[in-house]
């Protein structure tokens, strides 16, 4: 690693001023677990890092008047993992965190950094998309709200400007909706996912309402699969889940890499979408 300037502003406004919209070598750093990897590998050589660690206003978890849960961007993943409020609000988040990276990384990495990094192999983005979550982002022009579903522009890319910071994640009240996340690994049990599948749905007797099916890792960014969602309109028996899996495999733009070929990942999508739906429906055979 080469020397750089480390700025440690105490307020959000100060932090935004220290960022540079035109200079890729100036970046914010939160927990730093992902940035450090890039710096050690020499793929990112910063001129200045703007640490967000001293900004206290960014690390609260609170239920909002509209019933949504607002999670400060600087909340470490382990705090999220152990939060009773999160567990009550969306237990799928708690479950997802258990196999997300490892304890040490979860102790340091933050939810904001996790999203801003935009690595398609992160576990929370598909879950948050399935839950209908938004982020708040602050920049020189003020704050704006972006659905997590619209946050990712591509492989390691977001729609945020270089001088914008994620300040919070808002997860709406889930009501009677149920969700599940399945992580499929191919190189070892504990690994980044080769495929992540998050689903969220509302069951009404024999039918499913407003299902959201999101896949990640196997694609260049987390994506919803409207075809698969549509396939569930007929019902929620096993045949419907299989149809949703088939539709998902049909529409998923999987990519080949060290975790598997595109064709194999399509098969994983087929199988895991059906299994994730079964898990959300609390049905046996959901996991292997």
């Amino acid at each position: 690693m080469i020397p750089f300037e480390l700025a440690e502003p105490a307020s959000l406004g100060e932090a935004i001023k220290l960022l540079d919209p035109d200079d890729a070598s100036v970046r914010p750093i939160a927990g730093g677990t992902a940035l450090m990897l890039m710096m050690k590998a020499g793929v990112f050589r910063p001129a200045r890092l703007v640490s967000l660690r001293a900004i206290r206003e960014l690390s609260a978890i609170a239920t909002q008047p509209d019933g949504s849960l607002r999670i400060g961007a600087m909340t470490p993943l382990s705090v999220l993992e152990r939060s009773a409020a999160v567990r009550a609000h969306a237990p799928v988040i708690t479950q997802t965190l258990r196999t997300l990276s490892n304890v040490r990384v979860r102790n340091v990495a933050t939810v904001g950094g996790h999203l801003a990094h935009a690595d398609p192999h992160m576990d929370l983005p598909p879950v948050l998309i399935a839950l209908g979550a938004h982020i708040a982002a602050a920049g020189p022009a003020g704050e704006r709200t972006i659905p997590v579903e619209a946050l990712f522009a591509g492989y390691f890319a977001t729609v945020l400007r270089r001088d914008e910071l994620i300040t919070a994640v808002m997860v709406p009240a889930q009501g009677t909706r149920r969700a599940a996340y399945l992580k499929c690994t191919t190189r070892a049990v504990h690994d980044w996912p080769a495929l992540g599948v998050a689903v969220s749905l509302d069951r009404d007797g024999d039918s499913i309402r407003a299902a959201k099916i999101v896949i990640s890792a196997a694609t260049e960014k987390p994506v919803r699969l409207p075809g698969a969602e549509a396939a569930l309109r007929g019902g929620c028996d096993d045949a419907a889940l299989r149809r949703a899996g088939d539709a998902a495999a049909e529409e998923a733009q999987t990519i080949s890499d060290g975790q598997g070929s595109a064709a194999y990942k399509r098969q994983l999508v087929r199988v895991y979408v059906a299994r994730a739906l079964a898990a959300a429906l609390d049905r046996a055979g959901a996991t292997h």
Partner: protein
Amino acid sequence: MATRTATSTIGSGQVGRSVRRLEGAAKVTGRAEYVHNLRLPGMLYGKIVRSTVAHGRIRAIDVGAARALPGVHRVVTIADIRAVVPEPFYGPAFHDQPILAVDKVHYVGEPVAVVLAADPHVAEAAAQLVVADYEELPAVYDEVEAMTSAAIVHDVLKPAGTFPDLKHLQGRRNTNVALDFHLRRGDVARGFAQADHVFEHTFRTQQVLHLPLEPFVTVAEAADDRLTLHTASQSPSFVRIEIARLLGWPENRVRVKVPYLGGGFGAKLYIKLEALAAALALLVRRPVKIALTMEEQFYTLTKHASTFRIKSGVKDGRITARHCEVWWNGGAYADIGPRIAQKSGFTASGPYDIENVYIDSYSLYTNLTPAGALRGFGIPQLVWAYESHTDMMARALNLDPLAFRRDNILREGRPQATGTPMQDAAIVAVLDRLATRMNWGKAFDRGTGTIRRGRGIAIGFKASISPTTSIAIVNVAADGSVTLYCSTVDMGQGSDTANAQLVAEVLDIKAESVTVVHPDTDVTPYDMATLGSRSMFHMGNAVKLAAQDARDKIAALARELGLPKGSNVPVAELFQKKYKMQAGNIIGVGSYIPAYAPPDHDTGQTPNATPFWMVGAAGAEIAVDTETGHVRVTRLVNVADVGRAVNPRIVETQLSGAAIMQLGFTLQEKIELDGGQIVNASLADYKIPSLLDIPPDMHSEVVEAEQHSGPFGAKGVGESGTFAVSPAIANAIDDAVGVRLTSLPLTAETLYRALRAAANDPLED
């Protein structure tokens, strides 16, 4: 000095006891000494600049920008090295590997220059500024293609003078074959002609990595015409001799010190960073440390990828003829590859009693990272093939795999393929014990729906490397306390503890009271190396002889002092009586080399191929997810013949540790290449087993079978657990879903594709 065959003595209960590791407290407090920790005043850090092409002639190396970076002490290329080492080529079998690339590079990652700086960050930054220009040459990566490829890795073969059986290769040109080993027994052609059935299959193994968590590291310091190397090495005596040879110095001017190793597994053998660090220290006259990163381990040494074509004739359920062709992918430098091709090659026909055997085993140069020994010295590659083959034949013949093995197994006293009669090899007992632990005769839940279960067994064996020497010194101080000096390297296998137990057994003291001095070639005597599970047997015998020598000298001292025979006077009192004060030492010395007869060059036949045999068997129960190809090993049983277990607890850990390592090589690990470029050179992309990957039910068990020539009946155990794991799992997969995989690793995608192919619905590429 006592040089004789070790004899059995009546023990004091130290051998066979699960003594806790002597270094336990040092390791759990983080205070254990590793070279990694060492910093010396004025020390410079060396960062290696590596080749970006697989095969090429070096046109120029531009070090200008690197040299100009503030804080850089010096940028070194081979021209500088030659000022202190004029002939900078080393290696245990061939003198083919240069300290830094000479004229040509032979693989991606080969060292071409080094930057020295007091700040390692500066050295690293400067190393990225060195620009080498190459004229690329055709390259070869596959071991079978290397046999006939027009791409020739080395212009001329340069075997080391030390091995008579390599002499015929001296000066050979236009070949990538570094060694061809041949074994001929009986008449295979007739065997095949008379057989009822002939089976032929080809199996492959992938290139994998040792990956000790302490990466390679060496510190060199030069002063007053002497050189000291602090190095994470499994072979301090070899390092001393080879560095002395490179420098043209006598051995006694080179000192090699080795503290604990953070794992070795065969990686840290012979010369790795030592020659480079030594040359740099001599060049700049300051201490130099070279500590590789995890990534750089991928550019240093791997395990051989291999291809094995095996053909067997079966008549009335008996294997009557076997033809083996093995190609070992040795990478760009021979390292110990040729020895693997020979020493393991002669067991390629497996632990079976076969009348007609024909083996060709080839060590090949390719443009990949050099390959060496990895926990098994080639044996896991061979067992993978012959035990998969065994099951495929049994399946085709509709025979029970266990019964088929029993009918063909190599029994005590019967000649192995080399003609050497089997002795103290509990092959049958190991197979029987495995069958019992696997409940082989009993019904088995085969699963339902998309989860299918199966089970498989396999058995392999290995001949210990030979002939090699070990020497040990036991020092009894005037207060009766005992210190052992030996050059066995404790890299985690527990040799300090086991050797202390041997000393304690002979001298009738507590093992915990023995101090073991770590390898320091100024202090500890010669040992060939810590490799190939040889130490317990070879060094163990030397240690036992040294302790016996000390014991005899204590008895002689008692006689000299006029004490009656068998008197029980404490040792401290003997010294007190003799010197009238607390003074003096008794030095016991033991030297051991087993008997050996080299194989005939043309036929591989010998009456004494090895000092001892190791036997390892594995059984696996697995579950396959037929929709994804995921394999879960639900139960893994390992049984081995270890002679007598000197320390049962450590032996069990050795067996299960080896089995888990091999489990990684079976299901997970593979160096992925794009051309000659490794694309997964990190733990992020090269996944070794974690706690979540180990089977929920693991059972490791020893069949105790006295090794009569071993110390207190013991023999080596470090590798036995690796032998049979891979084929046991492949056999279990076939049992579960009727699909046969012939290439490692057995990934989920590979299996899923095979399932689809078997269903005549192949998955697109």
